[in-house]
């Protein structure tokens, strides 16, 4: 999945449509951070003007753009992770802080001890000093006070090791020498200090993160006052974003009763503790999901329910937390037609009643047609066309959308349309075609769509095996933009090239890959075929909200020369 970008407005039904394996479900999961995206952002409740600013910043080249984009991302994106914290300046700053802490933790007690003869052997004093030292270390280790980061334990461990060794050594070697009248028994004192301080410091290090947590809460609260929301806590968002799974037969735990299934999110998210309150909320969700009366269903197990009822339980479980946004991943594809509409109707009613927003993932354009406000058609992890339902279904512009719509069977036998059946199957996502990802199957692909040398060589080979290229014995893809043809001995390259030119121009409409041929040149005793340059079609906005990624619809951008992988 790559370069997928869309926005879902509040209270809208947005449909993602595409064949299986095109990345619909992955998109849905990435939205809820059930899979982590490697790159990119998912914004939640992004105000329009902030979004506009974000777009402007991304387009423009303002010097502080990166920092300002990060500020927006930190506020609204839930794929944002705090990761800058330790730049050089901060490292220096914290090193200074550590040094200061050391001076304070070691120097102050030493100074105090200097005034009290014999204090060195006072274990209580050392204990106190060490505890303070540990506390400071712990606080430093737990910073920065945003989200607890993965490196906290490492930092803590390193600092503690340092302190454990330094503190007693300083104490043992430094103090006695500076203290007049102290017993000059260095190893003895060293041992005492070591033992006592280790214990105390450990205690300090344990207590410190708690102190640091409290400190970071204060810092966070302060930052929230000045900057608004800081960072998005996925845990709290999970209440507001929900997922309805595809298969009601597999997505419900067979060992849990309906009550347990629906109440689990309430308990896990600590929405309700009181059993009566939980029961009331569960009953309400079940009745909202059309399982009436709820009392009849709460103690049933999934196997005692029909398919439609199971899907209603899934919906009830999703509704229990009163979410704002639901990702519905093929919610009706496993259900019988007569029940399907009821579930859809229920989902639409709930949208009215609770102001829900849906991201509806489906392979069925018919469903998208009746449900969606807006539709995005995906192919191999990219959005190829996006727009309102009318724009996409009634006036499709991308050849893939057109083909997809033409093959949707109509229940009315009088509405027979010409079907455009694409050849072959969706390419493997591991080996994605260059240029437009759809070009190998596209019925109207042309020069700029991204024909690679391998594809052209393949097509020439098939011409050759069909007996059309008699004098050519070897066809090799040289690099990504040239194909070399070896000729049988004794054949003039000029004549063969002329024949090839003619054959290519005759066949280019039936064998689309030949459209990728830009030039046929003889070089020595071989023929070099140079290919057209191509670019990947960007998703370009045609009208308000309607975008298409196709060179036929939008004029090709500046051609990018093919890159050898």
């Amino acid at each position, binding site marked *: 999945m790559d370069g997928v970008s869309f926005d879902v407005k509040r209270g809208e039904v947005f449909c993602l449509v595409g*064949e299986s394996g095109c990345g619909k479900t992955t998109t849905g999961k990435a939205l809820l951070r059930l899979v982590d995206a490697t790159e990119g952002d998912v914004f939640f409740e992004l105000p329009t003007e902030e979004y506009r600013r974000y777009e402007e910043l991304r387009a423009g080249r303002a010097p502080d753009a990166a920092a300002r984009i990060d500020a927006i991302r930190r506020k609204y994106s839930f794929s944002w992770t705090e990761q800058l914290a330790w730049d050089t300046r901060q490292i220096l700053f914290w090193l200074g802080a550590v040094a200061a802490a050391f001076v304070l933790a070691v120097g102050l007690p030493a100074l105090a001890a200097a005034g009290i003869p014999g204090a060195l052997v006072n274990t209580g004093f050392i204990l106190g000093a060490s505890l303070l030292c540990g506390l400071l270390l712990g606080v430093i280790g737990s910073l920065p006070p945003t989200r607890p980061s993965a490196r906290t334990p490492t930092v803590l461990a390193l600092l503690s090791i340092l302190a454990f060794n330094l503190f007693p050594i300083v104490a043992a070697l430094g103090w006695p020498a500076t203290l007049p009248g102290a017993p000059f028994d260095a190893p003895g004192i060293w041992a005492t200090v070591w033992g006592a301080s280790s214990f105390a410091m450990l205690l300090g290090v344990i207590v410190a993160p708690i102190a640091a947590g409290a400190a970071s809460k204060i810092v966070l609260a302060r930052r929230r006052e000045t900057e608004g929301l800081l960072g998005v806590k996925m845990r709290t968002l999970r209440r507001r974003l929900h997922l309805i799974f595809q298969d009601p037969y597999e997505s419900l735990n067979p060992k849990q009763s309906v009550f347990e299934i629906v109440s689990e999110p309430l308990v896990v998210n600590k929405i309700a503790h009181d059993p009566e309150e939980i029961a009331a909320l569960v009953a309400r969700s079940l009745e909202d999901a059309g399982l009436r009366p709820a009392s009849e269903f709460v103690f049933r197990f999934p196997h005692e329910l029909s*398919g*439609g009822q199971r899907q209603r339980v899934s919906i009830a479980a999703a509704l229990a937390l009163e979410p704002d946004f639901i990702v519905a991943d093929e919610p009706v594809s496993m259900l*019988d*037609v*007569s029940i399907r509409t009821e579930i859809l109707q229920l989902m639409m009613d709930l949208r009215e009643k609770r102001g829900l927003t849906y991201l509806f993932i489906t392979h069925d354009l018919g469903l998208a047609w*009746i449900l969606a406000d807006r539709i995005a058609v995906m192919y191999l992890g990219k959005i190829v066309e996006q727009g309102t339902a009318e724009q996409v279904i009634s006036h499709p512009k991308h050849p893939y959308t057109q083909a997809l719509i033409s093959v949707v*069977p109509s229940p009315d*036998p009088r509405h027979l349309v010409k079907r455009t059946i*694409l050849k072959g199957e969706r390419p493997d996502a591991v080996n994605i075609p260059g240029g437009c990802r759809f070009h190998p199957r596209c019925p109207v692909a042309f020069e700029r769509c991204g024909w690679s040398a391998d594809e052209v060589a393949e097509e020439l080979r098939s011409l050759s095996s069909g007996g059309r290229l008699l004098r050519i014995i070897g066809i090799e893809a040289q690099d990504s933009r040239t194909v070399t043809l070896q000729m049988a001995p004794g054949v003039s390259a000029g004549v063969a090239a002329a024949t090839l030119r003619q054959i290519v121009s005759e066949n280019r409409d039936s064998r689309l890959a030949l459209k990728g041929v830009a030039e046929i040149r003889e070089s020595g005793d071989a023929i070099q075929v140079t290919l057209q340059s191509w670019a990947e079609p960007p998703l370009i906005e045609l009208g308000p909200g309607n975008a298409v990624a196709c060179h036929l619809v939008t004029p090709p951008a500046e051609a990018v020369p093919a890159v050898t992988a």
Partner: protein
Amino acid sequence: MHAVDGVSFDLDEGEALGLAGESGCGKTTTALSLMRLLPYNGKIVSGSILFRGRDLVKVSDLRIRKIRWKEISIIFQGAMNSLNPVRNIGQQIAEPIILHEKVDEDEATNRVGELLELVGINRDRRRDFPHEFSGGMRQRVMIAMALACNPKIVIADEPVTALDVMIQAQILELLERLRKELHLSMILISHDLSVMAETCEKVAIMYGGKMMEVGKTVDVFTDPKHPYTQGLVAAFPDIRGQRTMPASIPGDVPSLINPPSGCVFHPRCKFAFDRCTAAEPALAEVTPGRRAACFLYPGVPEVTPRPMTVEAR
């Protein structure tokens, strides 16, 4: 329990019949009965299957083996799971050929190659194993297997379910082409009415193990007579039509263990009246060329109640 009851249809040579209905309504059971492939706990209690003047219910097990695959073959549901994962597809397609025809291995291999090319797979791939094929390709292999012994009738049990729309269109086009080329009769079983609209001449709508309506596809879809068919036709969204929520049929599919009295559909039927609960309508002609089992039409007779026979096994 009568899983399927009162089902009756005829199939002409070269004709395609669609068998439609929701899950659990007995479509597959009907298909398996036609080939006498019911599992050990299933039995054809009464009725007849006439194939070229012979009653398949009465012929001996030995004889039916000669008819299976050579005369009537089946494309099983779920191409993903119907192929043997440890044998290559060439062996699997050759198996019925070697079993049913007196041919040596070379000839069988040759025939496998022809079959694969017929369904649009390169013949060199016969040594590949099922996991090396995509869903659509596996379905093609299943089709090649069904055609192995030149059958007269092919039963396709949900051939395009669980496939993508585009692959679905490819498979349907292939079946259509094969039917024309090889002059096959076909029974297409599907829960998806829209699949039949474009491929079948006739459709039979089943519900709760009974046949509700039989007729020409165009007639049935444009002017459905039975309330269930009406509901089913209305339940499909039409991408070329209006943007309206399709109608639904309230309620659930009845359990066959404890079927409702009278007409099986009456608990969900909005036109049901007192006669529907009392008696069961028989499949009868309501307009020329169209049969429906519904009391809404005058002259539809009642089914004489038959005592449930419980057989000790």
